[in-house]
Every structure is written in C-alpha cells, then in structure tokens.
C-alpha cells in the first residue's frame, strides 16, 4: 500500500514537471533520455513491423494459398497437437485409469481412441522417435541404437549426430583460429513429417522431439532435444564439489572436485570446454568462491562480479557462465547449483553446463532465433539433450528428492513452451515430447517392487507413490491441453514405448566370450572399451543396448567373418544359442527373441544396422558393464543402480500408448503410423517409402 502511494506520488510529481516545463527541463539527461530513446525505438520498430505485416500480409497470404492450395483444400483439421510422453506404460495407465486416477485420459479415450502402440525394434527412444518422425523403419532412417560401433576402431559412437571440427585453421603463435564453423552432421536419414508438411505450406512447432539435433530447416520452428551436447561436448557431465575426504572421486557421467573449507570460504573452479583457439588445447575454467552463511543465505556463490545465494537443498536459478577463449571470443553456457550439505562437509552439485539458449554456441533450434525467443519470453531453460541428470542419482551424488526437484523444474519449462506453442500455432502441427515420464520411471521403478536388487541399502518408502503421482501429473497436463482442443483440432497423446523392471543385467560380450565368439588377448580383466579383445580372432561383439555385430571382413577393420554363407551360418548359430540363454540364479530365460535385422528391417541402410538385436525378457537388459565394452567374469549381474526400470527389452513386451480424440480405422497402431496420420490430416499425400500408414478412416 505504501509502495503504491509512493508510486502515485512520484507519478503525480512527474506529471507536474511535465505540465510546467521550462527550457532547461526539456531534457533531463540519460535517465529519461535512456527510457525515451529505448521506448521510442521499440515503439517505432513495433509500429513499423505492424505496418509491414499488414502491408505484406495479402501477398504472403496469396503466396501461401497458391503454394499450399492443394494441401489446405484437402485438410481435415486446422491443427494437430501431438503430446509425447516418453515411456508412459500402457499397463500402468490401465491400472491408474481403472482406479479413477486419470480422469482426463479416460475422457480422451471416451472422445476417440485408446490403444497400445507398437514400438520400434529395438524399443529405444532414439530409434522409436526417429520412426515416429519419418514414418519409417530403422532400415530407412538409419538410427539403430543410442550407440553404434565405429567399424574401424570398434568404439561406440553416438548414432544420430556427429560434430566435426573445421578442417582449415589459421595459425598465429599459440592460437589456431578455425576458418569456418564446426560441421554438425545429422545422421538420421529420410524426411520428417513436419518437413513434408512445410513443403506443402503447413507450419509446425516441434519441441524437444528426440533426434532433432542438429535442427533441420523447414517451415516452422523447432527446438532440438536428445543428442544436444553440453558445453564440454559430452552428453552431460555434472560436477560435484566436496570437502569430504571419505567420498570417492570417480563417477560415471560426472567429475568430483575435492575442495577445502578455509575460514568459511571454499575456492574452486568451474571446469569448462577445451579452448578451441589454442594449439595445445587446455580446459577453460572459471574461478568461484563459496562463502558460508553470507547475506542471510546458507551460502553465497561468487562467480566473477556476480553473487548467487545458495539455499540448502534448493536449486539456484540458471547461472550464466562465460568462458573466455582469448582473442575476444567468449563461449557462453549456464548451469544450476544445488547445495547438498554445508556441515560437517561442504557438498555442492553443479548440473552439466548447458548451451545458453540466448547465445547458443551450437545451433539448437530452427531458426536460431527460436531458442532466443523462448529464453527471452519465458526465461532460460535446459538445452541439454538428456536434460535430467540420471547419472547424478545413479552415482548417489543427488538423492531422490533432489533429482525430483530437478526433473520437475525442467518439466515446468517444457510445459510453458508447449502452451506457448499451442497459443501461437493456430493452424498447423504442434509436437512436444516430455521426458519426465521416461526419466522418473527409470529412476523410481524400484519403489514398485520390494524385491528389486536396486533397493538394497536405499530408501524404499518415501517415494512409493512417485510414479503414480507422475501419471496423475501427466493426466493434469492432458486436461489442460484438452482445453485448447476444438472440433477442428486433433489431439494425439502417445508414448514411444512402455516400461518394465530392470533387475538383471546381461553382459552379451561376456556371453560371446564364454561361447567362443569373442576372443581376448590374455584373460578378461574387466577393462572398458574392448581393451581386452583380440579382434583378429573375434567373430562377434555387442555394442549399445542390445545390438550384436559380426566381425565381418571388408566391413570391420579387422573383420574375419566372410560375408555370405559363413555370415548366415554364424548368425543362425548365435540366434539359436542366445534363445537358450538361461539365468540360472533366477531359473528364468533371459532372452525372448533374437532378431536378424536383414529380415526385420527394409531400406537402404540395413547393411549398417546391427546384425542381430537381442530382445530381452522382462526384467533383463544389457548390463552396465557390457554397455562400456568390458568383459566380465559373469554373464548375469544384479542391477543395483537407481536406474531400475527400463524398456530395452523385447519390443512386444514394452508397447507404448496411443490416445486420440478421433476414432481411428484400425486397432493396430504402430509408432510409424503417427507421421503419415499427421500428413493425412492436413491432406498431404503420404510418401510411398513410408512404412507407416494413416490411421484415419479413408
């Protein structure tokens, strides 16, 4: 009230000054001048743009009409909204719907359709979402797994994107100045349905659909997701500052920086990317200090001239970081901090350094200004592909509560983007994928099963209802989206796959070794990245989360298996043996099916696919050690990590969900059908190469 009175008084004073001007009061300096100049230019630009918009609109409308006349004439809808809930499981959905916990999903089901959705082979997000966007099987879009082997080095590589440094550089002293930008190669092939829609004049807003990095050009806006690296170029590396000498200092997915508390102050540094301008590349760093109990906060973080209060067990807002490479070049990123503990030890977690969406170091959106627009209108947001730091929880750097907070902060950012997109895309397609459903089920599945090996030594009570809460939150989201749905809007809510328990890990490379298909130099030591392997005697190896490769002559650098008959015979032999794989400790079969990709896939890239894909039974998945190329003593191991649920199993066991507010023509829905359906809804012909088909009644 007092503040209001003060404002009114100052306003009246201001008016008074304006009413009684004299010569020298005409200009009152930068104070008013700055506001005047800024506002004047903003208003001027706004009016100019408004004028330009109105002036050119008839021409653009005519052009758009001519270009997209055929498509728009045949369009059955004004807008299609697709909400992707990564990993939402149909069995749990059924269960919660039966309990009356998901009223909006039930309503959507009553309005139109609810069915299981056939996922991709393998049932992994990059593969499934690539099939979603292209309407094709992996043999056509070339995304086969999270990781695929480099056929020369046998080392795993990211399947969907590759970043290559500029080849031409200018050498000046200690500097090597790149002449050109780094090339970011998009490895996913075929065409996304939004690109085809764009060719027919239909605008789309695509938010955080996996495998959209680097962003492709089309008529619409897109924010990239999975595969977007952090500023260090990794898929997410957290930092953990701890003064506890008893804590280990080697983590997967992160680094620990030991610190000391001296007179209530901790001094350390933020580890940044390598300096791209130096010949002898060295890490760029930003010094910081943390002061305990400063200015009423639990601690205060001083980075450069800026001070950031730290509250115990709370995340800071996004903190901007600026790494100076020299020659005036700055690389900008941002991160959040989480003060885990002050006493007896100082423990501070820092998220991976995200690319700053306002000044992106790499292209993360199309057009580039889209990420800037989102950041400026809605605030900074997480840009890392795998945004939620599951490794920090796996390594117990974060606890469940901290991980939940982080995940929901990211989810809120995503929700804001979705509703802005719905508001702005009055005609066209809106696609938004939420990862929270996948990440929370990965990390909290153990709470659903008392006997899960991951429960050993961990809390099993506090978050027992977390997955149920998650589904209810998604129901609430669907309810809010339904408010925007009218007769001319089609709403599809879908997941790329379901979820099941991951209790036991299977080391396929150990199995191959024990069965004579993989040879080691001496004896297995458990060393990572195939260091033990003797490639000259190896016939098969496994990379990724279920892919198995023959060491084929002419394809692999040290291949010994002859293409043709020997290849076919070996494959059949491995398939037959793997089907018999028994987990003797649990007395169950570990493998449900083994797929020969030459039979399961079609398309120009089949030859680059894994030769075999192992479809594990529920409860089994490729082990953590297998994923890192280690040969261990045992084929089977208990999964004791918090990452206790998974979907990298036999695809028929982990279908996704499909909800639509319209009736569809079939009861068998594949993830490859969504893209063609969207095309059909806008009256755009479905390309002949698509494996999926429209779900609409003809």
């Amino acid at each position, binding site marked *: 009230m007092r503040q209001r009175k003060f*404002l009114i008084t*100052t*306003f009246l*004073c*201001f008016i008074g*000054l304006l009413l009684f001007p*004299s*010569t*020298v*009061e*005409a*200009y*009152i*300096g*930068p*104070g*008013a*001048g*700055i*506001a005047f*100049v*800024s*506002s004047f230019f*903003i*208003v001027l*630009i*706004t009016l100019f*743009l*408004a004028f330009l*918009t*109105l002036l050119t*609109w008839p021409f*653009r409308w005519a052009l*758009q009409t001519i270009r997209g006349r055929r498509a728009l004439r045949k369009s059955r809808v004004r807008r299609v909204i697709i909400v992707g809930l990564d990993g939402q499981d149909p069995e749990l959905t059924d269960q919660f719907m039966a309990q009356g916990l998901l009223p909006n999903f039930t309503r959507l089901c009553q309005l139109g359709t609810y069915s299981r959705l056939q996922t991709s082979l393998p049932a992994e997000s990059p593969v499934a979402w690539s099939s979603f966007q292209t309407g094709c099987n992996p043999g056509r879009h070339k995304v086969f797994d999270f990781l695929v082997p480099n056929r020369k080095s046998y080392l795993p590589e990211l399947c969907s994107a590759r970043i290559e440094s500029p080849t031409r550089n200018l050498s000046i002293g200690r500097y090597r100045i790149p002449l050109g930008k780094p090339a970011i190669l998009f490895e996913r092939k075929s065409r996304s349905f939004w690109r085809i829609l764009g060719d027919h004049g239909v*605008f789309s807003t695509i938010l955080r659909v996996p495998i959209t990095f680097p962003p492709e050009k089309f008529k619409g*806006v897109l924010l990239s997701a999975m595969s977007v690296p952090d500023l260090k170029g990794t898929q997410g590396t957290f930092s953990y500052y701890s003064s506890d000498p008893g804590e280990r200092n080697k983590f997967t997915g992160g680094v620990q920086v030991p610190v000391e508390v001296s007179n209530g102050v901790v001094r350390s540094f933020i580890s940044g990317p390598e300096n791209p301008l130096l010949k002898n590349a060295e890490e760029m760093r930003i010094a910081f200090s943390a002061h305990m109990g400063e200015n009423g906060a639990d601690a205060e973080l001083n980075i450069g*001239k800026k001070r950031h209060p730290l509250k115990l067990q709370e995340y800071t807002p996004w903190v901007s970081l600026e790494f100076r490479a020299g020659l005036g070049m700055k690389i900008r990123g941002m991160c959040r901090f989480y003060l885990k503990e002050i006493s007896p030890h100082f423990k501070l977690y820092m998220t991976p350094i995200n690319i700053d969406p306002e000044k992106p170091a790499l292209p993360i959106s199309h*057009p580039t*200004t*889209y990420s*800037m*627009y*989102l*950041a*400026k*209108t*809605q605030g900074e947001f997480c840009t890392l592909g795998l945004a939620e730091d599951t490794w920090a929880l796996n390594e117990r750097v974060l606890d469940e509560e901290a991980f939940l907070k982080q995940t929901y902060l990211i989810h809120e950012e995503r929700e804001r983007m979705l509703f802005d997109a719905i508001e*702005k895309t*009055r*005609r066209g397609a809106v696609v938004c994928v939420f990862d929270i459903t996948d990440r929370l089920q990965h990390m909290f599945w153990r709470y659903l099963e008392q006997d899960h090996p991951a429960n050993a030594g961990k809390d099993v009570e506090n978050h027992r209802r977390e997955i149920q809460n998650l589904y209810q939150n998604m129901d609430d989201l669907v309810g809010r989206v339904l408010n925007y749905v009218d007769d001319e809007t089609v709403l599809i809510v879908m997941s790329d796959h379901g979820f099941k328990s991951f209790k036991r890990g299977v080391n396929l490379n150990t199995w191959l070794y024990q069965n004579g298909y993989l040879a080691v130099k001496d004896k297995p030591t458990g060393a990572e990245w195939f260091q033990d392997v003797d490639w000259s005697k190896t016939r098969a190896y496994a990379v990724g989360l279920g892919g198995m490769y023959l060491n084929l002559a002419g394809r692999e650098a040290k291949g010994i298996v002859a293409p043709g008959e020997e290849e076919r015979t070996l494959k059949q032999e491995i398939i037959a043996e793997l089907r018999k794989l028994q987990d003797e400790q649990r007395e169950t079969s570990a493998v449900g099916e083994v797929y020969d990709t030459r039979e399961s896939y079609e398309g120009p890239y089949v030859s680059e696919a894994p030769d075999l894909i192992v479809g594990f039974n529920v409860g089994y998945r490729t082990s953590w050690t297998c994923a890192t190329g280690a040969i261990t003593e045992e084929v089977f191991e208990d999964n004791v990590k918090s990452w206790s649920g998974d979907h990298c199993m036999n695809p028929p066991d982990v279908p996704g969900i499909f909800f639509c507010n319209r009736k569809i023509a079939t009861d068998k829905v594949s993830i490859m059908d969504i893209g063609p359906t969207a095309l059909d809804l806008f009256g755009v012909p479905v390309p002949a190469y698509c494996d999926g088909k429209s779900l609409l009644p003809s």
Partner: protein
Amino acid sequence: MQIRRRKSKSGLKAWGTFPRVGVRGGGRSQTPTTPSDSHPTFERVVTTLMKLVNWFLTSLFGLLFWPFQGLDPVWALVFVSFLCGLLMVWVFGKVSNQEAIRRVKNKIRGNLLGVRLYQHDVRIVLRLQGRILRDTLTYMNYSIIPMLVLIVPLLLIIVQLNLHFSLRPLEPGESAVLKARLIQTGVLQENISLENLSGVKVETPGVRIDSEGEVAWRIRARQPGRHLLTVKVGEQTVEKELYVGDGWGAVSALRSNSLLDLLLYPGEAPIDASEKVKSITVQYRPLPISIWGWNVHWMVLFFVLSILVAFIFKGAFGVEL
C-alpha cells in the same frame, strides 16, 4: 573560438570561465550574501542554500572547463557529455530495479523475435505487438524512479551547461539591448538611469514600457572584459554583469529576484526582494556550436553524446538500460 583573458579598463578580472557568483554583484551594497529580512525564513534558507550550491557548481564547472579555455567549446561539451553519460549510467544502475528492467526488456526483445517467427499469422503478430507496447509501458514505468532521481543532478548540470554554452559574450563593437523590469507597473514615476558605463556605450536613452514596468537601453560594447553596469531607480542601485570578449564561458543573461530564476540562471546572485528592480536582462547572441560545419544546439549534442556514452558503457558498468 579563443578565450582572451585581458584586463579591462574597469580593472575587473578578465572574462573567462571561472565563477563569479554569490558574493558579488548584489544590490545596493555589492555583497548581499543574505536576503533581506522581509523574506520569510524558509525562503531565506532556500535562497542561501541555492546560492551556495550555485557557487559550488559554478566553481566546479569553471574548473572543469578551465583546460578547454583555448579550444572550441565543442570539446568541453563532448567532455562533459562523456562524464555525464558515465555518471548517469552508474546512478541509473544503482537506483533502478535492474532485475525487473532486464526481465521486461528481455520480453520485449523476445516478442520482437516472435513477430519475425510468426509473421505468417497476422493475428499472432498483432497480439505480440500489443504485448510489446504493454511491456514498453512497463519498462517506462520502471524508468520513472531513476528518472526522478536523476532529475535533480541533471537539472543542476544542465543549468550550468546552459550558462556556459547557450550564449556568447558581446564582441567589442557589438550592440545589445539591456532591459530592466521593475516590480511596479503602470506609469513609472521614478528617475531610472543606467550608470557606471566603463567599457560600454549607451546608444539610446531608456525606452519605457509603462504597462510592463520595463525600461530598455541599447548598449554597445567597447572593451573586452566583465563589466558591472548599474541600474539606478530613484535612490536604489542594482548591478548587472556584462561580458565582452570573443571567447566562450559562463554568460549570465538574467539577474532577477525570483527563486526559480536563481535556479535556472546561476551566474549571478539574486536581486534582493526589497529592491524596486525585478530583473535585468542582457540580450546576448547564441553561442554557435558546430560539428563538421553543421550548427547544432548544445542541448542536442549533449543529449546525443551522453546517451551514446551511457549505451556504450552500460556493459562495463553491468547496467541494463
């Protein structure tokens, strides 16, 4: 333009840029440091305070411009604009809600990008433009407080700049009109004359405009320097400084008994309220200030330069404008 510091015939210090205010050029007694007893106490206090402030600021600006005496006044103006730009950006940063300004400006910029992104949809574009205008008003609202704070020092600074850069002294041989306005209007009964004419020549007898209570003389400057002319009304005398020379500096065109004029024309002490003369004006000519051959008003140049400096250095000060 060159400043010439010469000894005038009257023995006064040569005209320059140093202050000469407050304790000199009073009414009947030459040193009326305090207003007469007829003033209410409050007004007397304010007047004394303002005289002190004027004396301090005029001294300060005199000192500030002293190194530029031999140069074109534009250099002094550039220098003071630079200082003001820095000062103001610093003050603006201290007294404004930086976080709120940053937020609202981000929204404005974001929505401007949105206009480009959604240009295919007129309705969305117009909606975004509406938001931009709304946010602009919010931004201006956030600027009110710093603007009010800045008004005080800026007003004082601009008054000083006005004193130095708006008018030039009379050149020897140049004529001007000197007007004395009396408190009393109607038929002027008193004997009114202009005296103490060393350095100037009165070309016309006093022309009386009874209805305005005004008497005007045409005078012609003869010798460079700062001369004190005396307007005699009956038995009372009031002095007015007259500047003759071909340089630039503090040129006070008006001396009056008004408090507002004391604020706006700080070059001379106010006329005592008990005097019959209300004000004395000398009609000097404007000081020409040119940049690359273009004549510009000093205020325009100050406006542009100070804003420019503020925008250039906002990053260095970490201030969002």
